[in-house]
C-alpha cells in the first residue's frame, strides 16, 4: 500500500476533514490517470484513430494528431476534463489549510534555529520568464509568489500538493526521483566519491536531501530562484535533520566560483526551462564542475521515436497542465546541447532507469549499470515509467 506522507514540523495537512479530502483527491487522480487513462489506448485504437483516418485518409502521424483524434472522442473529452479537474482539486484541497496557518506559519519558519544547514537569499535574483509565465502544474501562485514578507506559503502548498499529485508513489518524502538518481550514480560509478554536490532547481529540496543519505561525506548545496520554496525547503530539511545549504540563485548564472563542485544534478527541471535557459544552465554546469566531475539531469520520458499514442500521453501535459516548455524539451537534442556547452561528445551520458523500489532491486541494478539502458525509454504516467538521465563528465 501507499505510505502516508512523513509528518514533520512544517508539513501542513489541516483539519480532520481537510486531510481526508486531500487523501481522496489523490486516490481520485490516480484512478483517473491510471485506470480510466489506460482505456485511452483502446479508444484510440478502436475509435479515435479509425475516425481520424476516415476523415483524413491517413493515420495520425504524431502526438499532436493523436491528441486531436482522442480529444474529438467522448472518452477522450471525459478523461481530459476529469484529469484537469483532479489537478485543480489537488491544490484546492491543500489551499485552505495553508492559508489558515498564516501568518503564524511564516513566523515559525522565520524563527527557525538552523542546526544542520543554511539558507542564503538574494532578493536581487530575478525569476526567469519560463518560471513566471504560467502557474506550472496549475499550482495557484506558482513556485515564486510572495504573499507577505519572508513568505513560505508556496513552499508549504507545493510540498503537500506534490505528495498528493504523486499519489504517494514517490514515497513518504516525495524523494524517489532524487533517491533513484543518486543510487544510479553510486551503483554505476562506485569509485566516484563526490565531495561537493549541487542540486539545481531544487524547489523545496525533496529530491535534494536523498543525496545526503547516499553520499553522507559530501557537502550538499541546492539552488532555486523561488524564495518561498527555499525558505520552506530549508525549514523542512532542518526538521528532518538533513544538512543542506540552500541558496537563492538562478542556475543559469550562479554566484559560485569556477570548479566548485564534483557532482551537479537536477531533477525534472529542464522541461520547465526554455531552449536558451537550458543552454545557459549547461554552460554554467561546465563552469562550476571540477575537472573529473560529472553532471546528471533527470527528466521525464521523451516523445522522440515514440508512437503517436505514447507521444500524446506525454504531450497532453504540455498543453493542459501548464507545462509550456515540455514539448520543446521533448524535441531537444540533449547530446548536441551538451557539446554546445563545451562538454566532449565522448563524455556524454544517457541512462534510463525506473524509480528505486518500483521494480525488484536486481532489475533496478540492471538499468543502473547497463551500457545501453537508454535504448528503451518509453513509459506512460500511471504505468512503469523509465526516467531519463542526461549528463556528461568534465
Amino acid at each position: 500500500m501507499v505510505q502516508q506522507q512523513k509528518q514533520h514540523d512544517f508539513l501542513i495537512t489541516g483539519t480532520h476533514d481537510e486531510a481526508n479530502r486531500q487523501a481522496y483527491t489523490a486516490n481520485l487522480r490516480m484512478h483517473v490517470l491510471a485506470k480510466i487513462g489506460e482505456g485511452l489506448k483502446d479508444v484510440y485504437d478502436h475509435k479515435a484513430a479509425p475516425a481520424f483516418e476516415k476523415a483524413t485518409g491517413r493515420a495520425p502521424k504524431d502526438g499532436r494528431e493523436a491528441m486531436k483524434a482522442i480529444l474529438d472522442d467522448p472518452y477522450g473529452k471525459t478523461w481530459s476534463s476529469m484529469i484537469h479537474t483532479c489537478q485543480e482539486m489537488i491544490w484546492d484541497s491543500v489551499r485552505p489549510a495553508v492559508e489558515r496557518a498564516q501568518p503564524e506559519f511564516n513566523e515559525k519558519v522565520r524563527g527557525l534555529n538552523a542546526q544542520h544547514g543554511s539558507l542564503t537569499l538574494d532578493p536581487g535574483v530575478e525569476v526567469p520568464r519560463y518560471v513566471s509565465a504560467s502557474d506550472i502544474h496549475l499550482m495557484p501562485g506558482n513556485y515564486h509568489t510572495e504573499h507577505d514578507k519572508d513568505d513560505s506559503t508556496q513552499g508549504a502548498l507545493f510540498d503537500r500538493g506534490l505528495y498528493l499529485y504523486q499519489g504517494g508513489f514517490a514515497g513518504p518524502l516525495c524523494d524517489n526521483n532524487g533517491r533513484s538518481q543518486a543510487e544510479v550514480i553510486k551503483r554505476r560509478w562506485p569509485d566516484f566519491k563526490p565531495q561537493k554536490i549541487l542540486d539545481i532547481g531544487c524547489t523545496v529540496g525533496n529530491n535534494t536531501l536523498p543525496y545526503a543519505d547516499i553520499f553522507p561525506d559530501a557537502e550538499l548545496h541546492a539552488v532555486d530562484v523561488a524564495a518561498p520554496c527555499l525558505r520552506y525547503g530549508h525549514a523542512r530539511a532542518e526538521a528532518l535533520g538533513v544538512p543542506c545549504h540552500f541558496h537563492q540563485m538562478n542556475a543559469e548564472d550562479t554566484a559560485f566560483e569556477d570548479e566548485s563542485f564534483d557532482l551537479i544534478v537536477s531533477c525534472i527541471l529542464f522541461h520547465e526551462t526554455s531552449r536558451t535557459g537550458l543552454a545557459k544552465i549547461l554552460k554554467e554546469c561546465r563552469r562550476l564542475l571540477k575537472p573529473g566531475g560529472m553532471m546528471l539531469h533527470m527528466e521525464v520520458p521523451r516523445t522522440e521515436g515514440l508512437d503517436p499514442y505514447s507521444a500524446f500521453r506525454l504531450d497532453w501535459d504540455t498543453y493542459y497542465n501548464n507545462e509550456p516548455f515540455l514539448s520543446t524539451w521533448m524535441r531537444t537534442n540533449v547530446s548536441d546541447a551538451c557539446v554546445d556547452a563545451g562538454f566532449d561528445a565522448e563524455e556524454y551520458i544517457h541512462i534510463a532507469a525506473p524509480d528505486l523500489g518500483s521494480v525488484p532491486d536486481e532489475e533496478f541494478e540492471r538499468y543502473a549499470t547497463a551500457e545501453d539502458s537508454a535504448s528503451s525509454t518509453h513509459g506512460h504516467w500511471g504505468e512503469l515509467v523509465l526516467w531519463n538521465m542526461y549528463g556528461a563528465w568534465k
Partner: protein
Amino acid sequence: MSDKIKITPVNRGKRPAFFDDPAIDQLMAIVMSMSAEMSVLYDRVDTIERLLDNKGTLSRDDIEAFRPDQDTEDERNVRRNEYIARLFRIIHEERESLVSHDKMDEYNELMDELAKP
C-alpha cells in the same frame, strides 16, 4: 500582524473546455467535487465508528484530533478506490464496449434480416 494570505492564481490562463459545451466541463467538476465531499463524510463516519469501538464515547475534539494510522489509511484507500470505481462505472463500461461487438447494430441487423421476405 499582516492581513490573511489568499493564494490565488497568478498566471493560470483560461480554463480549457474539452466538451463542445463548457457547461459539461463545469458539471464534471461539480460531480467530482461532490464525490470528494461524500468521501470526506464517509471518513468522518469511519472516524466516529473507530472512536466508539475504542472508547465507547465521543467528543468533537476526539474526532478533530483523530488521524488514521497506516493500517486505517490502507483500509480507507481500498474503500475509496472501490467507491471511485462504482462512481465512474459508466466510463469503464464505454471502454469495455469498444472491444466487443455493438449489441444494437447486431439487433438491427437481425431485424433487417428477419424483415426480408
